[in-house]
């Protein structure tokens, strides 16, 4: 689809590949249908459950459709040939550019991230379905789909404006989801999240402005080419460096990098639990997509500037997360701090790109050099996949238990004591997920994830960071093990607390609903599958990034 532009100074042509945009467009379509259904549905639908079922169905279908589109795109000729679909591109006659400028590219990386996001979103939605009230269902689904759209768009965004808008699209509706609780904690959680998001947007925009000022473009590819030019004057390079790091700071809150992480536990605690699950997996995947796109794909030629900082951030993040998690006694907050710690692991591999040799070797080269940081990015994404699977499984159990078991109301870890006797299946899933997060056998997935995250660092000689990360493994094991051990511990005689179960021991007094069962099953299946076949997370992105 090629349209001619208006003349010399304007874009000479631009092209939009509707197939390439399908994964992003389908959730938007679903969102509109949900809104329309609500507006147009006859009254008798409203009385029963038909409308709710339809809205649930449409939302799920939209996500599944996006997933199907992702799978379909994987087979597209461009990708099979090892290239990428340039979905939204323009070419300016007067700019002196040889190549088109693309703001959306469907590459192997894009599709991997999109597949992950869609999968996590489906499970999160399943978890939310039974917790969503009738009246808020429209708002919930619309906001949910909008946030997923933003996350999906982030995966392919290749210019700073798209990145910025998509990041906000992934964040603002999530704020709305947190606020749907409509009470004081919900409002506080939403406000904390929103303020952090706004100020971070300010930082990101300032960073993007600096990069525009220094290089004259907002397209990541042009920026990286300009920055790879050794002739760039020093002060201008400083502006670019400041821009890059302000942008990192602006995106960091999304993955909960310290010190941009402080909103995380409060918002998780203030949000409805399924929304907390959504934030900790889908939203985090979106954040990593933003960071990978920004640093791994776009700005890696100046990695010498940001890699040490990102390495330090990663180590500080995992240390802070682990250290504070050690003292947490509330399940959701422990999970929140554990996601902080895991965020450090997720960005850790990117720190290996600061290796002076690889940067020197790439300086001045153009074109295919952009495939260079494949190893580090693949490790980051691989770890993210492992984390998302384990995080989803853990959250699914926590959400479902909190919904059904009154004893879990207070939500302290103590209420999980002896869970294995009462809810063996749930305890098994939760325990396995926790072991995966800790990286202990039999959670092989987590172990392999940590190994592949450390590998680029070891290869790149970043020993200090690698050793600090390895020490954090021991730190992290402590609180995951504590929780896991509580699952199988002997129940204490009740001291002033609620009884563990109304019925006889071992007889559940509630039934899992189909959607909940599907969600827990999917999470558990992902964990087991990836633990049995860890090569799935180790062998991502074989063909490079683009």
């Amino acid at each position, binding site marked *: 689809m090629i349209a001619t532009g208006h003349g010399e100074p304007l874009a000479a042509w631009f092209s939009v590949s509707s197939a390439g945009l399908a994964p992003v467009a389908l959730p938007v379509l679903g969102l509109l249908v949900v809104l329309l259904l609500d507006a147009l549905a006859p009254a008798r639908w409203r009385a029963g459950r038909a409308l709710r079922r339809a809205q649930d169905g449409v939302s799920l279908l939209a996500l599944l459709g996006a997933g199907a589109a992702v799978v379909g795109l994987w087979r597209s000729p461009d990708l099979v040939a090892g290239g990428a679909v340039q979905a939204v591109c323009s070419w300016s006659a007067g700019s002196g550019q040889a190549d088109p400028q693309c703001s959306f590219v469907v590459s192997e990386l894009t599709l991997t991230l999109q597949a992950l996001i869609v999968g996590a979103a489906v499970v999160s939605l399943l978890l939310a379905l039974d917790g969503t009230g009738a009246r808020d269902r429209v708002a919930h689904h619309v906001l949910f789909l909008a946030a997923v759209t933003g996350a999906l768009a982030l995966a392919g965004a290749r210019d700073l404006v798209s990145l910025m808008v998509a990041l906000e699209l992934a964040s603002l509706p999530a704020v709305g989801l947190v606020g749907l609780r409509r009470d004081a904690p919900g409002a506080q959680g939403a406000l904390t999240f929103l*303020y952090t998001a706004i*100020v971070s*947007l*300010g930082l990101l925009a300032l960073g993007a402005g600096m990069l525009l*000022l220094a290089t004259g473009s907002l397209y990541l590819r042009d920026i990286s080419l300009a920055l790879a030019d050794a002739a760039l004057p020093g002060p201008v390079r400083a502006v670019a460096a400041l821009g890059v790091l302000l942008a990192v700071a602006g995106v960091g809150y999304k993955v909960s990098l310290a010190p941009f992480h402080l909103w995380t536990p*409060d918002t998780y605690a203030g949000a409805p639990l399924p929304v907390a699950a959504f934030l900790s997996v889908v939203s985090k995947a979106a954040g990593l997509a933003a960071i990978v796109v920004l640093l791994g794909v776009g700005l890696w030629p100046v990695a010498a500037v940001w890699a040490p900082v990102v390495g330090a951030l990663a180590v500080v993040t995992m240390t802070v997360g682990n250290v504070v998690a050690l003292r947490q006694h509330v399940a959701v907050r422990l999970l929140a701090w554990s996601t902080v710690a895991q965020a450090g692991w997720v960005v850790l591999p990117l720190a290996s790109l600061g290796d002076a040799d690889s940067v020197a070797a790439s300086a001045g080269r153009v074109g295919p050099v952009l495939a260079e940081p494949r190893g580090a990015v693949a490790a980051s994404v691989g770890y993210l996949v492992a984390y998302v699977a384990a995080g989803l499984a853990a959250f699914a159990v926590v959400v479902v238990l909190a919904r059904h078991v009154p004893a879990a109301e207070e939500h302290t870890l103590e209420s999980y004591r002896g869970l294995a006797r009462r809810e063996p299946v749930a305890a098994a899933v939760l325990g396995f997920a926790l072991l995966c997060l800790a990286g202990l056998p039999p959670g092989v997935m987590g172990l392999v994830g940590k190994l592949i995250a450390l590998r680029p660092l070891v290869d790149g000689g970043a020993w200090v960071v690698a050793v600090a990360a390895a020490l954090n493994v021991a730190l992290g094991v402590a609180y995951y093990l504590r929780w896991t051990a509580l699952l199988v511990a002997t129940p204490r005689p009740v001291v002033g607390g609620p009884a563990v179960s109304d019925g006889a021991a071992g007889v559940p007094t509630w039934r899992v609903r189909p959607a909940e069962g599907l969600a827990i099953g999917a999470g558990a299946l992902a964990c087991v599958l990836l633990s049995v076949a860890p090569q799935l997370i180790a062998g991502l992105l074989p063909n490079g990034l683009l």
Partner: protein
Amino acid sequence: MIHLAGPALLVAVLAGAGVYGVLARRNAVLVLIGAELLLAAAGVLFVLGTALPAGGLGSPGLLDPTISARPADPLVSGQVATIMLITIAAAEIGLALAVVLLLFRARATSDLTAVRELGEASPSYTDHPDAVTGGSLP
């Protein structure tokens, strides 16, 4: 033709004022004013970026007056980005005010120091309540 230093200074002042405004206020609505100023600073920076010839500060034409200026960015990146930023800011402020109103309805205040029961220092989250001084942090 205007000198570049002016807009650059303006960006710095607006950003600084925005940061101060966000951090120094405790009324939830006034915090937003600071955030708006921070975004406005970024907007000026974007527009400034478009005013430069293609290649930005690093372009040879800028530093060497003998080379005629290269053509401007045909996609007017900076100005488009500013417009989008303004729009995002509007969306954000609308949402933020809804949240502030919700908070006000629930707690009858929009003073951020008065509503912080989600924090780590809140007694409900400490395993040993005596080990933490309550919520009296500044």
